[in-house]
């Protein structure tokens, strides 16, 4: 019997704002198998981003467990969580989130510098260029974020998420700034990576058409899962 890649076990997350407690995620349980492409849809404030952050080891749950390959990631040390984010996960944020003083290529190569294993330089530069080419930015390799449009920055961030060959991509509205044609190209790219490399995708989106192209759909409402 193969182990599920992600198991979310009765996870809740409360935020305390002033004197009020806001339940962003309420008792969510979910199993995601390796190599699947899952889309999460729902209204703003429904808890999609928080759920993604919980899976990504960026915020600890108020209760419940998040298992990655059978291990509860929130029993890990801060360094183990960092290593998990660096080597197992590729994260695409709601905005590009690039470092302004690094070029597109340098932004891609930054996660390699954080790997705990030795990182011989051979091949990383070429890989970064190949990924930038794959997202249609061959001519922007040495451009700084300020020299790129919002859509181009978004594509650099998409390419960066694949730099360390992650097992899991967590994408928070990754095509939000893109025009329809580029959005379609990026979706093709994701599907190809999912199919060819077996990379698991969990993608938050408002776009029901995009969600329709994924294998598994999840709807969130007021912090809870609903049948899609």
């Amino acid at each position, binding site marked *: 019997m193969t182990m599920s890649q992600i198991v979310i076990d009765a996870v809740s997350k409360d935020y305390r704002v002033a004197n009020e407690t806001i339940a962003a995620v309420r008792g969510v349980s979910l199993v995601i198998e390796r190599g699947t492409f899952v889309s999460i849809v729902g209204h703003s404030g429904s808890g999609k981003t928080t759920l993604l952050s919980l899976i990504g080891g960026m915020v600890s749950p108020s209760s419940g467990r998040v298992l990655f390959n059978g291990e509860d990631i929130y029993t890990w040390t801060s*360094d183990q969580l960092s290593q998990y984010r660096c080597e197992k996960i590729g994260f695409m944020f709601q905005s590009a989130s690039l470092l302004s003083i690094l070029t597109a290529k*340098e932004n891609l190569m*930054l996660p390699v510098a*954080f790997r705990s294993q030795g990182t011989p330089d051979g091949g990383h530069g070429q890989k970064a260029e190949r990924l930038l080419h794959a997202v249609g930015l061959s001519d922007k390799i040495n451009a700084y974020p300020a020299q790129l449009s919002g859509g181009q920055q978004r594509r650099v961030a998409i390419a960066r998420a694949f730099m360390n060959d992650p097992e899991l991509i967590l994408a928070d509205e990754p095509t939000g700034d893109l025009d329809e044609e580029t959005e379609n190209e990026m979706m093709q790219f994701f599907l190809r990576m999912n199919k060819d490399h077996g990379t698991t995708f969990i993608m938050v989106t408002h776009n029901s058409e995009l969600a329709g192209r994924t294998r598994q759909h999840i709807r969130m409402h007021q912090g809870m899962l609903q049948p899609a």
Partner: protein
Amino acid sequence: MPTLFSFAFKNIKRKPLRTGILMFAIALLAAALVFSLSFVQRVNGSIKKSTERLGADLLVVPTNSRGAAEEILLENRIKTFYMKRSIIDRVRALPGVEKATEQVYLVTVAGVCCSVPESMVIAFNQDSDFIINPWLKEKVRHRLGKGEAVAGFESAFNIRLGLVEMDSMLFGNVFRLIGSLEKTGTGFDTAVFIGMENMPAIIASGKVKNLQPDDISVVLVKVKPGVDPASVAASVEDTIIEADAMARKDIGKNIIAALKDISRIFTMTIALTAVMSFFLVWAIFTAIANERSKEVGIMRAIGAKESHILTLFFIEVLVIGIAGSLVGIVAGIGMSAALSKGFTIVKQLSTELSIGEQAVIAAVSFLGGTVICVLGALAPIQRLKKMEPLLVIKAE
């Protein structure tokens, strides 16, 4: 591949004015450290060396001439003072005195001979001397004859070209300079030495005012083993009313007291500069921490460990601290050289700092500048290190 080093250097270059201000503050601190430590060390070293090399346990001088004698010995000043020769016999008669010798201090007149500036001439008794003779034996190897002189290592008469024989006019008498002494590190380095047997001719020349044939300037005393020089000094002062006495350890006491005040001022200045530098670094790095919190959040989210964040910011702090300290050390050395010309006490000192002492001062200043820079940045960096990656996502 961008390493943490190259990333840190890019960050340093990102705001050149801010980096410049930080470096300037650290440089100021390091320069102040170099200047004040050099000053204090030079004065302290000069006093220590001069008293150590004096060769006498006790100095007996005319009443109220204690300060002038210290100035000659420690600051290369040109001074004269006289007392009656009979005092040496009264000193020799005191209990605890092993040997005593006398010297007469004279001042040449500037411009009389050879474009040589005003200088001290010291006539010493070659029969009883135990101060000059040991140095003389090494260089001249015979008793100084009448009309013969030796120059101190830094004397204006010692032109240091190997020319050790030249005729000089001193007080209307022709003297043959037959050698020069090794550096002693005392005020004697700038003097010219002659034998006491020349004194009758010099006095007869009438070129030295206020000097009588039976006048001497100083009696140098060696006490018997186990005798406290301070107790002999007290005996001198009690029994010889026309003389003051200084034990070797008391020589330079007034200068040391003045130096302590100057040191206190320097210490306060350095402390204030250090506090100012600390708060400047803290304030600027607090601003940097706020400005770059999103950047840190992104790095944490894509896998940076706390140690990566610490390393990145410490590289930046260390580069600024090290560069600032190095600039400060160079500026401090320049400042010491330039300002010491304006400090009479330093200008007159007979001792320069050794390479080792200079290296220690540079190292202390370097550490001082760098450590203050690191300490100032510590709290903001610790705060940044703890930043959770979710912050960046929330901020979006």
